[in-house]
């Protein structure tokens, strides 16, 4: 006798978070926002309301089930409780190079708690402040860029929600030909349960140069939290921006974010991301090479364990001739962790002599880990060169064996191997202390010192 058991995975209904326009409006008014900002919010809210929640029938979300999020805790604005900057681990606040702080700005649960900027940089006319202050003090500058080009509500439900309900933001402006020698460092720290919606707006005028480290951090917690983020990087003619963005959320965090960099003629954008934390991350990242001769690179390192899902959706858009893009994303996956990378190179009509490259490497460290790697090319111009490579492999026993024959135990051999695996991304981060911090995170994960909670 044969028994057939039919099991059907119960699909949870995807519910929208309980945000209300009235609350958003009250908050905006309480923050003293001018009408034009409130109008931006209101338009975005209308867009938000007109869209359904994304679900796994949408191609971009096919592999990303976030229906288990508990909006009862994650869908209300986090309330800052007066915690000071000292709650952020000291190692995250230390100067990035040597003893001299370039600039450090930090938020706790959406509230600005610290801001310092080296006098040398202030004298260069650099603006390095929170978005509300910038809206008040530099309205014209902000108005020209905020939600105008790099992030629009129409891009998706969470982009719309972010645009309507953003809680805090970083504003960096580097004037024409200013070369900022010391790095600028900002931290979004979430300590309370609830939602924060942080925005990053970076504007480099023609010929400007800067290096920025932006960190997302939260301690471990039991109740679900959410971060609904937006990043706009605007790189002017012949400007050069190195932007390092590191995410080390607690395992109770759900991140939904959109980021885009626009690069003008002969400009360069070197964008490096590292994700270690969160229960689930769904991040859309795009580099738009708008100007002739512009260059953009996206590098990523991801290490997921427990039942984490890290999903990155990348887009390299060649909108002008003689543009070069390069992408290298590397993930390591333990336990039942899952990574998704879906990447497209798009070459617009007329964007001749472009060179686009993307490589995604995934390393599975258990039989139950999973990596989805979906490269794609959309080419609408002649005389271009676009290539991609994607691999999913295991930790190579040949390497481990070699290292072990020198007397190092397996765990140490795996650690050394992982260091080497991530090295080509790590070496693009120009701060040795930050590299070491990331390596320490890798070690902790390898040793199972972070265990994701099953919620």
């Amino acid at each position: 006798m044969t028994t057939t058991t039919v099991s059907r995975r119960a699909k949870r209904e995807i519910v929208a978070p309980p945000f209300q326009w009235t609350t958003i409006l009250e908050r905006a008014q309480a923050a003293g926002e001018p009408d034009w900002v409130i109008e931006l919010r209101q338009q975005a809210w209308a867009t938000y309301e007109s869209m359904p929640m994304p679900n796994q029938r949408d191609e971009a979300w096919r592999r990303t089930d976030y229906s288990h999020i508990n909006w009862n805790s994650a869908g209300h604005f986090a309330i800052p409780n007066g915690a000071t900057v000292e709650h952020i681990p000291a190692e995250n606040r230390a100067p990035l190079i040597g003893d001299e702080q370039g600039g450090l700005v930090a938020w706790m649960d959406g509230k600005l708690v610290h801001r310092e900027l080296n006098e040398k940089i202030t004298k260069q006319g650099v603006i390095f402040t929170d978005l509300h202050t910038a809206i008040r003090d530099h309205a014209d500058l902000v108005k020209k860029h905020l939600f105008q080009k790099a992030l629009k509500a129409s891009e998706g439900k969470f982009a719309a929600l972010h645009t309507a309900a953003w809680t805090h933001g970083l504003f960096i402006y580097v004037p024409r030909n200013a070369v900022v020698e010391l790095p600028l460092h900002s931290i979004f720290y979430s300590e309370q349960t609830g939602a924060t919606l942080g925005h990053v707006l970076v504007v480099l005028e023609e010929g400007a140069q800067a290096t920025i480290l932006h960190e997302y951090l939260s301690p471990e917690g039991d109740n679900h939290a959410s971060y609904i983020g937006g990043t706009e990087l605007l790189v002017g003619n012949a400007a050069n921006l190195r932007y390092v963005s590191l995410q080390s959320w607690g395992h109770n965090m759900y991140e939904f974010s959109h980021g885009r960099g626009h690069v003008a003629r002969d400009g360069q954008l070197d964008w490096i991301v590292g994700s270690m934390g969160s229960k689930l991350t769904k991040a859309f990242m795009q580099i738009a090479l708008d100007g002739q001769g512009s260059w953009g690179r996206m590098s990523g390192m991801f290490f997921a364990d427990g039942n984490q899902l890290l999903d990155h959706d990348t887009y390299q858009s060649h909108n002008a001739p003689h543009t070069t893009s390069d992408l290298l994303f590397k993930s390591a996956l333990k336990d039942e962790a899952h990574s998704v990378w879906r990447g497209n190179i798009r070459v617009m009509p007329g964007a001749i002599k472009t060179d686009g490259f993307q490589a995604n490497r995934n390393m599975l460290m258990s039989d139950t880990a999973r990596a989805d790697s979906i490269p794609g090319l959309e080419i609408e111009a002649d005389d271009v060169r676009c290539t991609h490579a994607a691999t999913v492999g295991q930790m190579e026993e040949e390497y481990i064996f070699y290292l072990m024959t020198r007397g190092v135990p397996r765990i140490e051999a795996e650690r050394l191997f992982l260091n080497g695996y991530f090295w080509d991304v790590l070496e693009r981060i120009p701060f040795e202390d930050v590299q070491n911090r990331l390596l320490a995170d890798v070690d902790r994960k390898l040793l199972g010192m972070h265990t994701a909670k099953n919620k």
Partner: protein
Amino acid sequence: MGATLEIRNLHVSINGTPILKGVNLTLNQGETHALMGPNGSGKSTLAYALMGHPAYTVDAGQVIFDGVEVLELEADERSRLGLFLAFQYPVAVPGVSVANFLRSAINSRRKSINAEDQGITIPQFRKLLTQKMDLLGIDHKFAGRYLNEGFSGGEKKRNEILQLATLEPRVAILDETDSGLDIDALRIVADGVNKLKGPDLGVLIITHYKRMLDYLQPEHIHLMMDGRIVESGGPELAEEVEAAGYKPFFEKHGVEVTEE
């Protein structure tokens, strides 16, 4: 008294295919042995099996080193017991410098003896590594390079010998350390091994070629065919192989010749 490596009736297979079919060999610390044999005879399999490569299954036999059952141990434990393998194809590990790797290997050794050990201090280690590099005529810059990353064939082999010198094993197996080296690189590597030879080091040289043996002068020669050591003798055995090739030995020992 020195330690003895004793291989008794060792049978090893890979994915169910028998490769070693009863190997017997005894090597004492301080002796230099050479293992010769045609391609596919099982020489490298013996090297990997002795170090505990997970892809090699031991079906029968014993390996005893200094009274310890080696086959029960993981590769790192075998290393800490005093066995060393110089690889034919060492792998590259970017981001990990030669110096950092060797330091972590030394510290693993110290910790296995005493869990409380704080590790070798950096000045102590630097001194040790500098000594070894000077002994082998290796440029000090080598220490800062990433392990085997972008190394030439000769550099990889010299790096293996530097590891051998630094880790000071009791028995070292050199798996075709001569392969892919031109005559100058071969001489440098062989000179290095000669400097390390002595009463505290037993060496098992695996090679196809007599060239390496002319430099290293092993006292014992073993000839391997079809997974067994079919003949053992003194240096004259290597001369015979050099003069007549393997063919007469195939015939003598009734081994089927399989051309590769």
